[in-house]
């Protein structure tokens, strides 16, 4: 109170105290010199406690006054009091002002959240240092992905083309395409995809027994070791086992055939050596057909075996259709030959048997133009096929084109891969050589065939001597198939 009296008149101090918040504390009205405040007998206030509180209040007020004087040292006391009142008023109203949610300092309108300054900062929100790695990594990965695409696209494209050839029933072309791709992959990364290999296994299955050797080599090369035992390769394993059982069956066939005096003996012996559980039924029937054929059995026996193959294994079209065409040829049913050849074409247009049987059928029907066309279609796919060259040689001869016939006969002779094909081609080649006066060629043919123990057909000499015509041999009766 002594401090307050130093700075302000009594009435000003009273007014100041009145304006402060809190309880009003009665001013000491005791005379000067008397420091003790008597304990009020009615309220029971402790004078020492009261004095202490008043001192605290005094210090507080002094502190606020000192702050205001620091702010404005030249201000009058009335101005300081006014300012104090204004501050008090503002403290009361401050709860209704909206401040920026980010900085909490600047006022914003009711419908806004952020002040202008903070909005400006937010528009340029910085990237943390590590976020710059994201686009860098993305660009690097894009580059790698494009390289990966470029490197592997040719194999993908080749596989798609090969599969389209399969869908177009051009199985031989598809096989050639895959062979090229296999060589390419072997050079680049040797990573053959599982599905890529399966496409080829499926292709070999469709091609049939004529390609069993190649199929087995393929499976043993690309599914070596434990790879073939994996569960997702069980179909490949089953196919491999089927091929191996077919090869074993050939040994059984030889054993039964060599010891048999007749077809019935052969069948008895063969059935005792093989069981249906261990071998494919279609293969067993095929060997029975083959035995019936070489043992000169009736056509009906052969037909029965082939019809049975068709019944037990309808999907093995590449196996039974050529056999049915062969039987039809023996029966003189040339339209059926064409029908079976067309059915075979729906599996593999490029099978040499399609062109072969059509060519023979049309030849025996007297339509040499169609026969030539069928043969040429086949030669376009497999130009070195011995049987097709042989047929084309006959057709050329019938058309009077002896030089062309000579050329085709020569190819047929050089490319012959079975005994029958060799003998037939040798006979035709000898005939064409003699017709053209190629004596040296003819002599070398005779010498070679003699060495192998296969004589030239005696009908060749009869044609040369004029006892038979070319048409007699190749268009009538059993045609060239009787001249062995």
């Amino acid at each position, binding site marked *: 109170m002594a401090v307050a009296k130093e700075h302000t008149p009594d009435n000003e101090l009273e007014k100041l105290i009145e304006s402060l918040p809190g309880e009003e504390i009665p001013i000491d009205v005791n005379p000067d010199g008397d420091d003790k405040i008597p304990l009020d007998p009615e309220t029971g206030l402790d004078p020492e406690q009261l004095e202490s509180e008043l001192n605290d209040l005094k210090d507080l007020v002094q502190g606020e006054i000192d702050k205001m004087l620091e702010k404005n040292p030249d201000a009058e006391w009335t101005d300081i009091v006014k300012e104090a009142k204004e501050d008090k008023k503002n403290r009361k109203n401050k709860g209704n002002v909206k401040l920026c949610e980010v900085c909490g300092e600047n006022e914003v309108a009711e419908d806004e959240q952020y002040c202008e300054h903070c909005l400006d900062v937010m528009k340029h*929100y910085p990237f943390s240092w590590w976020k710059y790695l994201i*686009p860098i990594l993305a660009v690097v990965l894009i580059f790698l992905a494009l390289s990966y695409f470029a490197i592997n696209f040719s194999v993908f494209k080749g596989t798609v083309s090969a599969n389209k050839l399969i869908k177009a029933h051009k199985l031989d072309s598809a096989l050639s395409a895959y062979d090229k791709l296999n060589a390419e992959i072997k050079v680049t990364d040797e990573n053959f995809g599982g599905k*890529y290999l399966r496409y080829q296994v499926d292709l070999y299955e469709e091609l049939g027994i004529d390609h069993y050797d190649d199929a087995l080599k393929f499976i043993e090369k690309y599914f070596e070791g434990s790879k073939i035992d994996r569960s997702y390769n069980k179909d490949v394993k089953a196919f491999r086992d089927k091929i191996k059982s077919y090869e074993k069956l050939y040994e059984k066939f030889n054993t039964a055939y060599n010891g048999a005096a007749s077809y019935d003996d052969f069948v008895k012996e063969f059935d005792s050596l093989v069981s249906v559980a261990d071998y494919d039924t279609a293969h067993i029937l095929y060997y029975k057909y083959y035995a019936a054929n070489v043992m000169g059995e009736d056509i009906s026996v052969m037909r029965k075996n082939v019809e049975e193959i068709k019944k037990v294994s309808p999907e093995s079209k590449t196996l039974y259709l050529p056999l049915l065409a062969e039987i039809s040829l023996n029966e003189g049913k040339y339209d059926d030959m064409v029908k079976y050849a067309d059915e075979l074409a729906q599996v593999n247009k490029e099978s040499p048997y399609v062109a072969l049987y059509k060519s023979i059928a049309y030849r025996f029907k007297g339509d040499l133009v169609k026969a030539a066309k069928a043969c040429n279609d086949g030669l376009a796919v497999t130009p070195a096929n011995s049987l097709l060259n042989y047929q084309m040689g006959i057709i050329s001869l019938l058309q009077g084109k002896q030089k062309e016939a000579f050329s085709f006969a020569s190819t047929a002779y050089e490319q012959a891969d079975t005994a029958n094909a060799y003998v037939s081609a040798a006979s035709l080649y000898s005939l064409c050589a003699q017709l053209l006066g190629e004596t040296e060629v003819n002599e070398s043919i005779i010498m070679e065939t003699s060495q192998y123990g296969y004589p030239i057909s005696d009908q060749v000499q009869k044609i040369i001597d004029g006892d038979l015509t070319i048409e007699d041999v190749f268009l009538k009766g059993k045609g060239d198939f009787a001249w062995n």
Partner: protein
Amino acid sequence: MELINYILKILTFPGAFLKAFLEQLACRMYEVPIEFGRYFQKNELCGHVEHLLAPKKGSFGICFLPHIIMLFCGLVFTIPAALNLVYLGKINYFGIIFLYVGISCLLNLFPLIEDSLNMWEHLYGKESKATAISKICLFIPTVIMRAGSYLEHYFVTVLTTAAFVWSVPYLFTLFIK
């Protein structure tokens, strides 16, 4: 839903990070204030940046720019991987990595529903100030992004992405002789 979204964003973090980065970049380009720049939050904003709704100028851009770049990245990574893995069955590290990154990009393709609606309002709303040419030219991408934002919100893009990965090699075969 939020938990599934969060888990999916974690699993596809390469795509989520790239998408959020592109969104932040687009916001900066169009001066759209960003409230919170954290890319992974345990709410529906996971994989996005929290920003104010864009004004007219940026409403299409902040949706389209990240979308088109993510689509490009998704295709670039997915196609070579699918051709080798799906069609040829060729398994290697590169193929698996590219397939994973590609799928994660394709699963983070579309904007938030709020952003797509904001874009729609600015273009085709009652108070839209867009020109007729803008409305015509931007109609298809806007519809795609708006529909896509819903598909992505309800995880339908998981199925569409799987179908795309499976079918893309066979689509390519249509163009190869």
